[in-house]
């Protein structure tokens, strides 16, 4: 007796034919569904350039196979999904091998390899991975039964019956679980029926089969049970395959596809408008306006809710959940077709609630680009003039005066007056460093203190720097993120022209928004220069020895990662190392680095009306609560001018005044140098001359 088994043991000829018929139907339905999706995607705008598809596919394979994205911030879900994924893949591979042997190798080639030690190894591997699948599904089922908030499908913006989503999820996970269990039962009944000794290599089937026998099951009964289970398992399996393009299971296809075709700089470098764009070409107004890549991404969503949980707007009660934006678009795309007006489903107040902080994009396990999608929705609203009155007047001020404060441009360099030394005009003489100061750091009174501190530090370090004085205009990061693409382009063009006329080696800014758009988006207008953030510059100066702290501050501090510095640019360590160098004890907030919680000002939100709602707590206030929860802090350290503004306020309004103080990084560095923070630096010059 050789070690193998009959694939169709106990089945009549017509039954086998019927079975093959079912396979054909199931496969046809599957491919019909896939073709329908592909046709739907092809109706999208073709704005995505797929360069290096091989490299993309390789990177995507790495991300999918390692589950690097899926396991983030929820390792248990990562393990559960990995078990399901690998269990499913191996069982699927096993079925494919069997089909190859039965339908091709053996009948066509006369090559019969599914026997002997191959068969035994095959049996063992499939048993082990079958167990993995079942355990993974059990983990997910238990997680679901515990009702975590991120799997709560209630919308923040309206009441909606979403039971069909819940049912769909349960059917999906239940179906897979049924397949895993019935597979094992099938094996057990077969072993109980035929009882071959070598089937110890299918340990689960062996144990359960012998268990049945121990309970008194006869071979005849086992045969009958096997027959019934065989058909049930088979039909459910074929039904599952056929349903993949139509259910949550579509993420098995769209997920990896989206990870492959996604824009790797999504949200970080927004797409420019086509040259001479007409109103219909600006942003997303109808489903037909979406790029095909964004259409693919809609189907990749599994409703895992990580974006929903990470969203600062959602956390503060704004009518926005990034998950619902994607689901709304998906429903429109699937049911209403390309002509569907998005505005009928996603309301302007939802679109305007977003801070463009990238928390959702950053955590999405399938690479969905919520932020650029929302940005496209904003572009259309701006083009149609449907914007918050406060945002409108700010954009008008930016257009008219070149700054969001609506101040005359001559006031921009006014902060330099109190320095006690002259700041170079980089338009007139070369400087090693071009300091692009930014609006908040230039015009806001509280921020000017930090700006002046930085100037004094650089002066003390002997750094060669200059500014653009009144020729600097808003860099436009938030103008762009508010959806006013035309204004951003005009600002970028003008700033690029101004900067191009200067002689310098590097640009730096203390404003992460400015830093970001100069570094990552100005190249779209020919402005390609090395750009650093002042935290990086300070670290350099400390490490080179150009700055020597005269005293260790010995303060207990926490540090807030600005979205545009951290998530947008991956600068997490420079500010932390600066704090370390000046002797601060850094205590991390629970949400730090890539999980930093937006202050609420981003994406132009600082220029819009706030939410009016009972019990509304600003994101910045929630963040101060989080910091205060650490206990015994001296300072809440920031290195973004908008953070200075937001958190100075939030400390007062959150009811934590007196419990901690706000410091901008430069202010602490200046203090460590032994230079007074606010006084003119006649003293600083004297200090420098000391040995």
């Amino acid at each position, binding site marked *: 007796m050789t070690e193998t088994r009959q694939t169709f043991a106990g089945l009549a000829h017509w039954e086998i034919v019927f079975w093959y018929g079912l396979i054909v139907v199931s496969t046809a339905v599957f491919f019909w569904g896939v073709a329908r999706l592909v046709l739907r995607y092809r109706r999208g705008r073709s704005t995505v350039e797929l360069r290096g598809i091989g490299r993309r596919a390789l990177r995507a394979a790495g991300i999918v196979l390692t589950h690097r994205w899926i396991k983030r911030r929820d390792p248990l879900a990562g393990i559960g999904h990995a078990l399901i994924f690998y269990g499913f893949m191996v069982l699927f591979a096993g079925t494919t091998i069997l089909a190859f042997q039965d339908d091709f190798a053996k009948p066509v080639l006369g090559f019969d390899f599914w026997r002997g030690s191959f068969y035994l190894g095959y049996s063992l591997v499939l048993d082990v991975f079958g167990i993995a699948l079942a355990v993974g599904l059990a983990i997910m089922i238990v997680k679901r039964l515990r009702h975590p908030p991120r799997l709560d499908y209630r919308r923040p913006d309206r009441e909606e019956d979403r039971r069909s989503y819940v049912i769909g999820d349960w059917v999906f996970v239940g179906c897979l679980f049924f397949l895993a269990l019935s597979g094992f039962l099938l094996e057990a009944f077969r072993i109980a029926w035929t009882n071959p000794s070598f089937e110890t290599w299918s340990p689960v089937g062996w144990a359960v089969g012998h268990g049945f026998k121990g309970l008194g099951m006869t071979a005849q009964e086992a045969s009958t049970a096997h027959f019934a289970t065989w058909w049930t398992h088979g039909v459910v399996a074929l039904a599952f395959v056929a349903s993949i393009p139509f259910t949550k299971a579509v993420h098995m296809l769209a997920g990896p596809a989206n990870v492959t075709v996604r824009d790797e700089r999504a949200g970080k470098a927004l797409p420019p408008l086509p040259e001479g764009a007409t109103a219909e070409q600006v942003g997303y107004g109808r489903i037909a306006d979406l790029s095909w890549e964004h259409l693919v991404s809609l189907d990749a969503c599994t409703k895992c809710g990580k974006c929903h949980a990470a969203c600062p707007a959602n956390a503060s009660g704004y009518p926005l959940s990034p998950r619902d934006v994607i689901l709304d678009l998906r429903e429109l795309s699937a049911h209403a077709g390309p002509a569907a007006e998005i505005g009928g489903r996603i309301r302007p107040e939802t679109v305007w609630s977003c801070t463009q902080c990238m928390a959702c994009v950053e955590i999405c396990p399938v690479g969905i680009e919520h932020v650029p999608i929302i940005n496209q929705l904003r572009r259309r609203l701006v083009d149609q003039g449907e914007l918050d*009155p*406060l945002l409108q*007047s700010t954009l008008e001020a930016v257009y008219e005066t070149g700054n969001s404060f*609506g101040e005359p441009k001559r006031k921009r360099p006014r902060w330099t007056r109190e320095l006690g030394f002259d700041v170079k005009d980089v338009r007139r003489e070369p400087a090693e460093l071009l300091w692009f100061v930014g609006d908040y750091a230039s015009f806001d*009174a*509280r921020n000017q203190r930090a700006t002046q501190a930085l100037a004094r530090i650089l002066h003390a370090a002997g750094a060669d720097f200059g500014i653009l004085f009144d020729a600097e205009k808003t860099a436009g990061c938030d103008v762009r993120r508010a959806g006013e693409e035309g204004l951003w382009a005009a600002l970028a063009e003008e700033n690029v022209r101004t900067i191009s006329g200067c002689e310098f080696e590097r640009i730096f800014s203390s404003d992460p928004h400015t830093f970001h758009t100069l570094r990552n988006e100005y190249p779209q207008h020919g402005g390609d220069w090395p750009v650093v953030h002042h935290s990086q510059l300070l670290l350099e100066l400390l490490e080179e020895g150009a700055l020597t702290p005269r005293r260790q501050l010995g303060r207990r501090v926490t540090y807030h990662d600005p979205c545009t510095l951290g998530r947008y640019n991956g600068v997490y360590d420079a500010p932390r190392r600066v704090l370390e160098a000046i002797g601060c004890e850094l205590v991390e907030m629970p949400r730090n680095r890539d999980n930093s919680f937006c202050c609420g000002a981003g994406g132009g939100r*600082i*220029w*819009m*009306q*706030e*939410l*009016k709602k009972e019990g509304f707590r600003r994101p910045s206030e929630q963040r101060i609560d989080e910091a205060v929860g650490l206990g015994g802090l001296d300072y809440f350290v920031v290195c973004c001018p908008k953070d200075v*503004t*937001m958190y*100075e*306020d939030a400390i*007062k*309004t959150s009811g934590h005044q007196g419990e901690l103080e706000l410091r901008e990084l430069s202010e602490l560095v200046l203090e460590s140098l032994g230079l007074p923070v606010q006084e003119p630096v006649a003293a600083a010059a004297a200090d420098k001359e000391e040995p």
Partner: protein
Amino acid sequence: MSVLVVAEHLRGQVREVTYELVSAARSLGGPTVLAVIASDPGALDVNRSGVDEIVHVRVTQDEFESDVYQRALEALVEERQPQVVLLGFTVNGMGYAAAVAAKLGLGFASDVFAVSRDGDGIVATRAFYGSKVHGEVEFPAGRPVLLLLRPTAWPPAEGPGAATVSELALAPVASRARHKEFREVEKGDVDITTADFLLSIGRGIGEQENVAMFEELAGKLGATLSVSRPLVDAGWMSNARQVGQSGKTVKPKVYLAFGISGAVQHLAGMKTSETIIAVNTDPEAAIFDVAHYGAVADLFDVAEELAKLV
């Protein structure tokens, strides 16, 4: 220097600006002629100290209509040949003054807040460039000058006068813009965005009981009461009165803030007010960055003193 003043009246009441114009006229030396254009000019008592002559111009319309006033003023200028004509820089004054100036080729300036004689001519002072600068303007020689004077810039003339009264006959005027009715602006539902004068209170007032005192003060001052967000959050005031990003954006002539520290969201809603006066105990309060006038003082003491004065 002969001065013609046109009285302004509404629903049978002489408006205060009329007497301010009389004061301004007197400061130019006079003689001062006060014209009353009305269906029954005699019913309006305008005989105040400083008026030398009152001219009644009888018309068929009861209320202000710009064509009527234009024709009447043209007739007055023709007949009396004044060197200076003074009207209020009011909605009515704006309705016809420039038309008369354009038609008769007069010297003309509006929103004038100071006038003085300069030899045979006069010099008027007004603001330019959003009040960033003031300017003195002079007028073409040898023709009358028509000025619209800023209300409240002169104290009203007081005390009974001894003016003579005369009449000027005017043919009936067919008016192309006809007064139909007056409507009261709906009350109760306050609209802080259209108020010229906001008295705004914030967290600094401490307790809900203190709201009443500021309501009373606002009433006395003729101001509309507005608030910052914490007071709405606390449920002390309705959100219709809230200034700031989550409330209304306001741009009154005067924004008088008591106990508002100036959260950025609040400042965004009011920083373009024409004049901002802030009273706060905290000298570091951000509101002082946008205020034109600031007082670091106990806001209750200041409020009490203010209430005593009005």
